[in-house]
């Protein structure tokens, strides 16, 4: 679909300015594209390639390695059920099966109304709260099948405004004011920071 819009281009330049080398901003920029469109569009990848001065193939190469980047539209809500060991022991697989039946889709599938995509995922760092899942990467803990049904009902009726649409990660961004920056160090930029030299006792 689309290239980054003007507001996001401004954000992209700010993000790039945080790194000694532009290419380091690639993953954050792919997230930005996914936040804009809900998935990573081909045009967006080309745009990102221009911004960080690499080839579109390199952007695709990075993008395709990471599971969170979706190259096609997915549901508004992505439900990721953990079935890794701690969750399996506490009923994670049964929860996934229930989700499959309730939503009528298999992992990787999206409901016809475009509301839900289901995934069978690895450990999401909530193992003591098993079985658990994430909706657009927001955790839900210790779910029974009834809890799952209630969650789906709430999502359908728009009661979970705390969960942003797929693609939005953190709703807060880091901003470094120009006058507060220490200044980035390009790898070719040799020499110790002045404060380090002056504070270190003379070498013996």
């Amino acid at each position, binding site marked *: 679909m689309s290239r980054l819009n003007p507001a996001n281009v401004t954000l992209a330049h700010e993000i790039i300015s945080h790194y000694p080398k532009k290419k380091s901003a690639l993953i954050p920029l792919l997230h930005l594209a996914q936040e804009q469109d809900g998935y990573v569009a081909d045009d967006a990848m080309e745009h990102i390639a221009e911004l960080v001065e690499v080839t579109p193939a390199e952007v695709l190469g990075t993008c395709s390695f990471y599971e969170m980047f979706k190259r096609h539209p997915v549901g508004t809500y992505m439900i990721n059920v953990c079935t890794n060991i701690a969750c399996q022991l506490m009923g994670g697989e049964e929860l996934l099966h229930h989700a499959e039946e309730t939503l009528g889709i298999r992992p990787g599938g999206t409901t016809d109304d475009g509301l839900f995509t289901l995934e069978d995922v690895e450990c999401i760092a909530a193992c003591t709260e098993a079985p658990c899942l994430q909706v657009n*990467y927001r955790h839900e803990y210790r779910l029974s099948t009834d809890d799952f049904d209630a969650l789906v009902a709430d999502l359908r009726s728009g009661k979970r405004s705390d969960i942003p649409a797929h693609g939005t990660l953190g709703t807060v961004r880091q901003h470094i004011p120009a006058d507060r920056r220490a*200044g980035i160090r390009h790898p070719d930029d040799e020499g110790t920071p002045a404060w380090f030299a002056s504070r270190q006792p003379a070498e013996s």
Partner: protein
Amino acid sequence: MSTHTNDYVPHAPGYVDNEGPKVVTSRFPYEDSFTMERSLATGGYEGLKAALAKSPAEVAQEVKDAVVLGRGGAGFPAGIKWGFMPNIWPRYLVVNGDESEPGTYKDRLLMERDPHQLIEGCMIACYALGLNQCFLYVRGEMPLAHERIATALNDAYAAGYVGKNVMDTDVSIDIVLHWGAGAYIVGEETALIESLEGNRGQPRLKPPYFPAAKGLYYQPTIVNNVETLANLPWLMVNGAEAYKQMGSEASPGTRMLAVSGHVKRPGVYEVEQGVVSFRELFYDDNFCGGIRDDNELKMFIPGGGSAPWFFEDQLDVPMEGRTVGAAGSMLGSGALVVMDETTDAVKACLRVVRFFARESCGKCTPCREGTSWEEKVLQRILDGHGRPEDIDLLLEIGSNISPGTYPVAAFGDEGLEAVPFPPKQTTICPLGPSSVAPITSAIRRFRDEFEAKIDASSDDAAEPVGAAAGGH
């Protein structure tokens, strides 16, 4: 600091405020523990202030004296690792917040509940290392951690704790929040660096063994785990001597341990290292309170999905890297998964192996092919299509995914020798070899369960097509 309730803390899901000294979780009982106000009201940034009053070398020495062991998995002393940095600039600090080892749940809590403590720890490390740029790499699937850290960094920059002229001194250090996008292997430190350079997150060929020599942009780079760095503010305020009052001589201080699975009270506990045994952790009321329904313990994973399994024989081992290592496994990332008598050993083994098969980055053939082959064989045994030779086949595949000289499971107590891996290294990183840990553990201990499933198998006719793809 806080008076312990021994209860779950509702706003820190899973965290139990048990009795015992608290180094990194002391603010968790406060609902607003992630705010600048709460941090400052409870001694926040005092550690940085103390550090800035010393020379960088003195701060590094204090960390070395305290023997702060890495909390990311390998348990390497931070002070020693820092010493590996050659005198080359610029150099970088990369914080490993990619937590995704099965069973591990602690770094996310530290990032969500006390981001200022982590930021302060990063600043102390940067100061000691004489570097002015730090990247905080947070796992992509943790947006709450991102929000909390982004807010904390914005506040800390505004208040002068990070950035230019820290606390009105000449010291200037930037911390940049970076985020991942879903790949377990990126937790491996050289893959983390590749990812931070904007590349596919695949580990680099070693040597050099430590990124301290050549890391980010091939400059000297220290990679430390979130929990490791979160220890530093306390250490700077209280000193190495006080730090060593906690824990054992070889492993001072505390660790955050996540106990999941079949215990009565699963949760995240901050525990003194080397003082408490697995038995106490699983059965004491101060901790997990016993196995669910008072069932028998069948086995447990002492340190994340990569760790060889333990059994009741190892319950009295004190929990610290050294003793757990000597007993044939590792405390790894502080992830304990408890399985009771109702657990199917083959099924549990398959699930852990499947994780490695899915997460293999594909760079080395033995890992890429071997892990999914192991998965296929285990799956057919579980599905009732196992073949008599499958057990040996599993062990053989495993022995070809070799970590070289890495330590492997020895069940010395039971008169069994160390697993006879060939002495050559066939993979670039330990992910592939990790898939062998659950297999050797399960087969050695529960061979009869594998055999029973194979004996009951309907033969070839029902053989699913997928399982035949493995070859032999």
